[in-house]
């Protein structure tokens, strides 16, 4: 389970610091803003996503690809028609990534991909809470899950956000990795907003992954709902 704190950045309309068992990101969202000319679309709002890596200068190509995926999903979820000629800016900073330390990749090139998937997964979930915190109109809710299948035990799915032991995480020999962002309508997971699967897998694996993602989504969303319940009870006129 992830742990999140919302409304922590004063300078942004909405923000969330989300920590999973092995990663931590902070996301600040502001909007609708008055944009520069190039961001001014006549019929809808522009969405700008910036992801900063946990160390070093960025965004590098690794982050550019992450930004693209996040922006595409946000485009589908935010009611962009509501804010024409405006900009919604999403700023994400990765604070902790499980592969930050020297030598933690174990010389395995696969871990480089794992690390960006873990970062992206946290960015998705953190963005959703930030969007709600910023009171930006959404068409639906979404939750992201990151599931993996290892070479050793291909029948078992591992939810990477729940692996707390870093050494275990670093030593996995992955067969395939699946990032699934599911849409939630009427409190139930419905459509696939984003599916990013890599590695070696077949139809059965995919069905298993989608099933597991649905379960995880329901559980995580319950978590998020209780978070919002608490938030609302302290907001506005409901505040005691």
């Amino acid at each position: 389970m992830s742990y999140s704190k919302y409304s922590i950045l004063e300078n942004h309309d909405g923000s969330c610091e989300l920590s999973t068992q092995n990663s931590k990101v902070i996301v600040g969202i502001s909007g609708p803003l008055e944009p520069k000319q190039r961001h001014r679309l006549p019929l809808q709002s522009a969405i700008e996503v910036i992801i900063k890596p946990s160390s070093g200068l960025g965004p590098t190509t690794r982050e550019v690809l992450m930004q693209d995926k996040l922006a595409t999903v946000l485009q589908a979820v935010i009611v962009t028609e509501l804010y024409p000629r405006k900009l919604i800016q999403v700023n994400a900073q990765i604070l902790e990534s499980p592969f930050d330390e020297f030598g933690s990749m174990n010389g395995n090139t696969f871990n480089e991909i794992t690390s960006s998937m873990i970062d992206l997964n946290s960015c998705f979930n953190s963005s959703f809470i930030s969007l709600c915190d910023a009171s930006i109109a959404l068409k639906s809710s979404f939750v992201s899950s990151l599931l993996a299948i290892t070479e050793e035990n291909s029948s078992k799915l591992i939810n990477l956000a729940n692996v707390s032991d870093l050494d275990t995480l670093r030593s996995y020999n992955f067969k395939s990795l699946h990032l699934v962002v599911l849409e939630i309508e009427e409190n139930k997971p419905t459509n696939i907003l984003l599916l990013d699967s890599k590695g070696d897998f077949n139809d059965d694996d995919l069905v298993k992954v989608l099933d597991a993602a649905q379960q995880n989504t329901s559980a995580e969303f319950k978590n998020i709902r209780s978070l919002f319940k608490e938030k609302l009870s302290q907001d506005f006129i409901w505040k005691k």
Partner: protein
Amino acid sequence: MTDITNPEQQNTVDTGIALMQFPKQVLSRLQPDLVLQRHLQLGLRPKTLMKFEEFRNVEENSSDDIFVNKTSNSDLQMTKDEDSSDDALILANNVLKVGNMFIKTELSLGIAEFDSLNINEDSFAPIWPEVNIDRGRIGAPTDEEMIVSRQIFENIICGKYIKQKDLVIKSIGKKTEESETVTYNSLSEEDELLLENENKWSFVLYAKINVYSREGPVYDHVFNSLMLCLKKLKFPGVYIEESSIDLQIPSKKSFNRKQKQETQRTFKMKFDFQNCKKLILNKNISISSNFGVIYKDPTLALSSSGGSESVLEDAMDVENESKEFKREPILIADISTDIEESSIFSRLSVSCNSSSYTSINLMNGSNNQKISVQQLKDALQLSKARFNSLNPN
């Protein structure tokens, strides 16, 4: 949108507002979604007039030669200190013609010190790609180029195509000054220099990919081109030229305490193209194909019979609406024109080989046009069929 009509319709509407008419090409730029929708109603795709699930024709062209530019092949130099080679070396190449789009892939090779600190022998090697989409401009790479490069990089690693182990240079030859031939594994003489350098160096693969006359999303075609290229990749032998071995002894005159007081041996490593070895891929190559989902929107359709009045009447007829306005999803294979690209936001890219999938990238970019599980299934099946029809192995 009421003031834009097709040229065919020019005489049929009589309203107070002056009509503006645009030629086909202009209209497709102004209102790509409208043009696409009208074609969809006819059961065709704009410009190419392909069927919905039809792919563009792909022609492959490549030569089996190794290109070493400028100088004769044995002059290609590799010194111990700098591991960047002349970029004129091309080990494998491929030109893919997809519709009107050309993709040129060139694989080249470098040698780097095999650093067991950072690289595990059991892991899988990356290819470092550089994707250039030709637009008649120079400057920093665009977002699209960066994204495609990174996707290629990630999917090559995840697809587990090349074992790192296979890239390590296991035996290094030696060319003595007298003989013209390169000898490998000369067990007779225990050469300290050769022993020292065995398993110390590793090949690094670079891919330079150029896309000309871009039409539609390029990632899948770039990936396919690289895959076909990889199948033909051959590694040259590596040898040390005895005449190039040199000892560097620091001069004693230097009073600078910080200067390195170590004797250093330098030598040149050269490629031997007579002794090429084919790269054995860890996995069969896969073929990637993309799909898009768009919903047919009957409100944008041209009526097939009758004048505009009947169109108006139909639109007014509320009872008819529920049946008429049913939006029907259409799966489109191989997004291939800018019209399709600018109006289809829900896309799917699948790469698979005969037994399994190696990557799926599904993005729902619009809330009104979602990809359902059924369409995902259809797309997966189509991509398998596409693999079989191209049959690259």
